[in-house]
């Protein structure tokens, strides 16, 4: 049961009082409210109170840091608090579900990475599709990397793939978990190149790095930051990125272009989404503020320090990116035999 009523408290500022019995009923209530509130009045005052910025990742990860730096810059611009709330769990799908189901008034927005939007839907039963949220913008990407032990007899991507193709080749690589973006990124390349490597799933890139450095798996597969210092210290030989282009943080490492496999590119990227029915003026305000913030020197520096590449896209372009990636990764997951599993 949902009781919703509203009244004009101050001229030009509407507010409402609500009693929601269950969280997912909020969506219905909210769409009722959204229809009745004059959206012009809302835009003039937005944001009139603190905005919740939901991050479906744990505190301290790359996604969380980007969200916090962005929030700080946007706060100064819009003169309102953006409170970062970490809602991690189920590969980010838990928090994403909350963002999508939130009241579309612009006071709940979500800062996400691509995995819960384009990867998880292939292995988990999620309650959203690209039609149930709206992408506001995206900030850029970071590629995954495959590294071998320092003594591995290959010096570039070509030789690496050649070694994997050898008839007696029998190697293991660590990844971030089955059905995760990293695994799909790696398998997509292996498939295109026609090689087979035994995947060993770990709890995250840090754990993979630890097991790779200890010699328990042959190759490291994961994001750049955990392996970067070890590559610099000569403890790892990084041979192939999952992006088409090279990365300035690892200038010696080939991108997929070196193998003419540009089309198999899978990267990790970040962006802002809101529930579908957010009023247009609010959407515009958010898009403008976050695109400006992402272009600031302060944010550029934060991106560079994490080895990420700045590439700011607006809502429309981000939405297109999500849809293409969702389809492409769906095909990889299907060919790997990953299916939606029910208990």
């Amino acid at each position, binding site marked *: 049961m949902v009781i919703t009523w509203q009244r004009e408290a101050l001229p030009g500022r509407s*507010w409402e*009082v*609500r*009693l*929601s*019995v*269950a*969280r997912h009923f909020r969506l219905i209530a909210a769409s009722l409210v959204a229809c009745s509130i004059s959206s012009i009045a809302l835009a003039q005052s937005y944001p009139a*109170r603190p905005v*919740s910025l939901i991050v479906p990742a744990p505190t301290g990860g790359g996604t969380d840091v980007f969200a916090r730096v962005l929030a700080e810059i946007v706060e100064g611009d819009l003169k309102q608090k953006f*409170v970062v*709330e970490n809602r991690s769990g189920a590969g980010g799908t838990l928090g994403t579900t909350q963002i999508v189901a939130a009241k579309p008034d612009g006071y709940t927005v979500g800062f996400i990475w691509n995995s819960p939007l384009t990867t998880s839907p292939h292995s988990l039963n999620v309650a959203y599709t690209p039609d149930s949220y709206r992408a506001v913008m995206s900030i850029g990407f970071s590629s995954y990397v495959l590294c071998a032990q320092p003594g591995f007899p290959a010096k570039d991507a070509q030789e690496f793939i050649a070694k994997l193709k050898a008839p007696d080749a029998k190697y293991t690589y660590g990844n971030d978990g089955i059905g995760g973006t990293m695994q799909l990124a790696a398998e997509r390349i292996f498939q295109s190149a026609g090689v087979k490597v035994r995947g060993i799933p770990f709890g995250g890139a840090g754990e993979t790095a630890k097991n790779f450095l200890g010699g328990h798996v042959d190759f490291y597969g994961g994001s750049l930051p955990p392996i970067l210092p070890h590559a610099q210290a000569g403890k790892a030989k990084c041979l192939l990125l999952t992006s088409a282009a090279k990365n300035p943080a690892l200038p010696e490492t080939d991108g997929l272009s070196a193998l003419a496999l540009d089309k198999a590119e899978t990267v990790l990227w970040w962006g802002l989404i809101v529930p579908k029915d957010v009023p247009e003026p609010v959407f515009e305000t958010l898009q403008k503020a976050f695109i400006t913030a992402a272009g600031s020197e302060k944010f550029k520096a934060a991106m560079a320090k994490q080895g990420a590449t700045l590439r700011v896209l607006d809502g429309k372009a981000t939405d297109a990116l999500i849809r293409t990636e969702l389809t492409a990764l769906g095909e990889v997951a299907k060919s790997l035999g990953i299916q939606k*599993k029910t*208990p």
Partner: protein
Amino acid sequence: MTGARVAQWKAEVAGGLLLAAIGGFFLYFGLRLPPPDEPGVPGPGSAPIALGVIIALCGLAVAIGGLRKADRSSLDLGGRKQAIALISLVLATALFEPAGFMLSTFTFLTAGFILLGGASWQRAVPAAALVSGGLWLTFTKLLGVGLPYGLIGEILFR
């Protein structure tokens, strides 16, 4: 203060059977999980199946031990106060999100102070208001924890 009592051996039998049922539950649903991808490497169901069997066997052993027990002592299951504490706790947690922090905690504390602590209305109501208000301020303002607003919270603080 004493409440409902039950013979020790009966409790052991009931507890053992409950444990065996829990083991059976994990065994049953564990068998329905997908089989291992390759032979020799345990799959998602392997460990739950093994543990389900161990729990079930332990439960049965406890139940049999209870049957053979010569001890005639009895067990205090709890009385009125436990029932009150439990029911109010269940209500407070169930209403925490829908009714909001203020309403659920104030009601819970008032009821608790009166029924468990034997306080009078005149003392319980202000104490409950003070404690719930203080906790609200500590957690939301100082620690930045998001607590459910609910009706009263929306009127007072938003």
